[in-house]
């Protein structure tokens, strides 16, 4: 029996509205809001990055697992497409910050928006194999969208951390299934600052086919049907895609609601479905089944079936809930502040 022992999330305080971005580029805000089903997104300030988001999310995961000695964490994996360094691991800084060094294995993962669930999957596999007592899987991004590109309206920031173990579980992992093929829907070449995407191609052939492929396969593997689940969390590059894919798979709006954060959070890339899972765990009850399915361009999806245990009632309020981070203490910024925060202005070094 392996699964989640502690979980936590972190989101920036700052937000920018679709209208604020649209007015600069002459875009029609109502049609973007309708098309993406998204009204605003989170923006990281200049002193926040994937490492700092990961540290805060991990501290909350540890708060929800007070019995875990950080020295017993055998691995830290961070999945992100915005690691602060091209060469220098993010995981070691998190390991130092929580006191998990030096007997530990760290690696940074990349797979567009699926890197985070990859980190979770590998961490889970280690504890399942008995290689270590605990392993930490982190999903976080401070994603960039090119100015005036459709992605600029959605690319946002956030992180989630999951301590995997085999005892005192908050949620047991019953099944996993990964599904991937080579699809050139979104990429960033070496030394390029902004990612590129294949426009309309990113929908049907990439997101929908892959998400459905992984979800249908895990349903078949488990012998379960959508109605068996209390909740479902899908990758959310915008508000619309997860809503449509869940409907097409046979899930209801009520099932996706707690983890459907993109309409006000934006696309936290690697963090998207993992942060959604933290918000879902926050409101779940013992015995609830949760289907989580990530998606990463390139393209692949990792699906997990989680069964919530009675420990959820003890731990959910040992750290701040994800919806509180989304709903409260929010500061709206203008486009000028946004481009300064995101270092889009060329200055003398």
């Amino acid at each position, binding site marked *: 029996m392996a699964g989640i022992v502690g979980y936590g999330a972190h989101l920036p305080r700052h937000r920018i509205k679709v209208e604020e971005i649209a007015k600069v580029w002459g875009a029609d805000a109502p049609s973007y809001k309708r098309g993406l089903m998204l009204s605003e997104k989170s923006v990281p300030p200049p*002193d926040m990055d994937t490492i700092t988001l990961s540290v805060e999310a991990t501290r909350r995961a540890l708060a929800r697992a007070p019995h875990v000695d950080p020295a017993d964490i055998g691995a830290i994996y961070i999945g992100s497409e915005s690691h602060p360094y091209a060469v220098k691991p993010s995981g070691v*800084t998190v390991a*130092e910050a929580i006191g998990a060094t030096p007997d530990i294995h760290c690696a940074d993962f990349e797979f567009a928006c699926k890197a985070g669930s990859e980190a979770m999957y590998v961490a889970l596999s280690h504890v399942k194999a008995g290689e270590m007592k605990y392993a930490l899987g982190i999903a976080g991004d401070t994603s960039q969208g090119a100015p005036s590109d459709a992605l600029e309206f959605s690319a946002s920031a956030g992180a989630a951390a999951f301590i995997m173990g085999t005892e005192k579980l908050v949620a047991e992992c019953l099944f996993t299934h990964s599904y991937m093929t080579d699809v050139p829907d979104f990429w960033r070449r070496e030394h390029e600052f902004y990612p590129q995407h294949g426009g309309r191609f990113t929908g049907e052939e990439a997101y929908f086919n892959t998400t459905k492929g992984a979800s249908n396969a895990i349903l078949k593997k488990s012998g379960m049907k959508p109605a068996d689940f209390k909740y479902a969390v899908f990758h959310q590059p915008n508000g619309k895609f997860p809503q449509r894919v869940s409907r097409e798979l046979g899930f209801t709006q009520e099932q996706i609601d707690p983890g459907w954060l993109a309409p006000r959070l934006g696309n936290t890339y690697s963090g998207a479905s993992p942060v959604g899972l933290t918000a879902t765990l926050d409101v779940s009850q013992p015995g609830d089944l949760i289907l989580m399915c990530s998606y990463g361009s390139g393209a692949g999806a990792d699906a997990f079936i989680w069964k919530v245990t009675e420990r959820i009632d003890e731990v959910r309020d040992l750290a701040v809930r994800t919806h509180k981070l989304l709903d409260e203490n929010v500061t709206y910024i203008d486009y000028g502040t946004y481009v300064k925060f995101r270092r889009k202005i060329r200055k003398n070094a």
Partner: protein
Amino acid sequence: MTMFSSRAWREYPQRYRLEASKFKKSGKTYFPPRKVDPETGDTEREIVRLPDTGKLLTFTVIRIAPSQWGDLAPYAIGIAELTDGTRIMAQFTDCDVEEVKIGMDVRIEFRRVQEEGHHGVISYGYKFVPKWY
């Protein structure tokens, strides 16, 4: 450009984990950690981790900042008393300077502190944010 990464590296225990020294005889906790208790001369100590919340005792606002913090100006720097009684000085973030008030509750968060330009090492550490939950 200043090279500060070697100093930052030596100070990871305090910068990353808020490690302080607590002396046996006096029971006093010092941050940054000390090897000798200045009051008793005691060297017997244990390393403790400070709590991450406290109350602001005093602050000042930096409007003309050193170059590496220029983009963040204006910002506040304050001294807070943490819940265990230890005092700590840190820069404020996520907070307009008008929001900063003596007596306010603060929380410590892990942030980027400075960078060696675009090419160099990034230093991480602690900053104050308003405690809102």
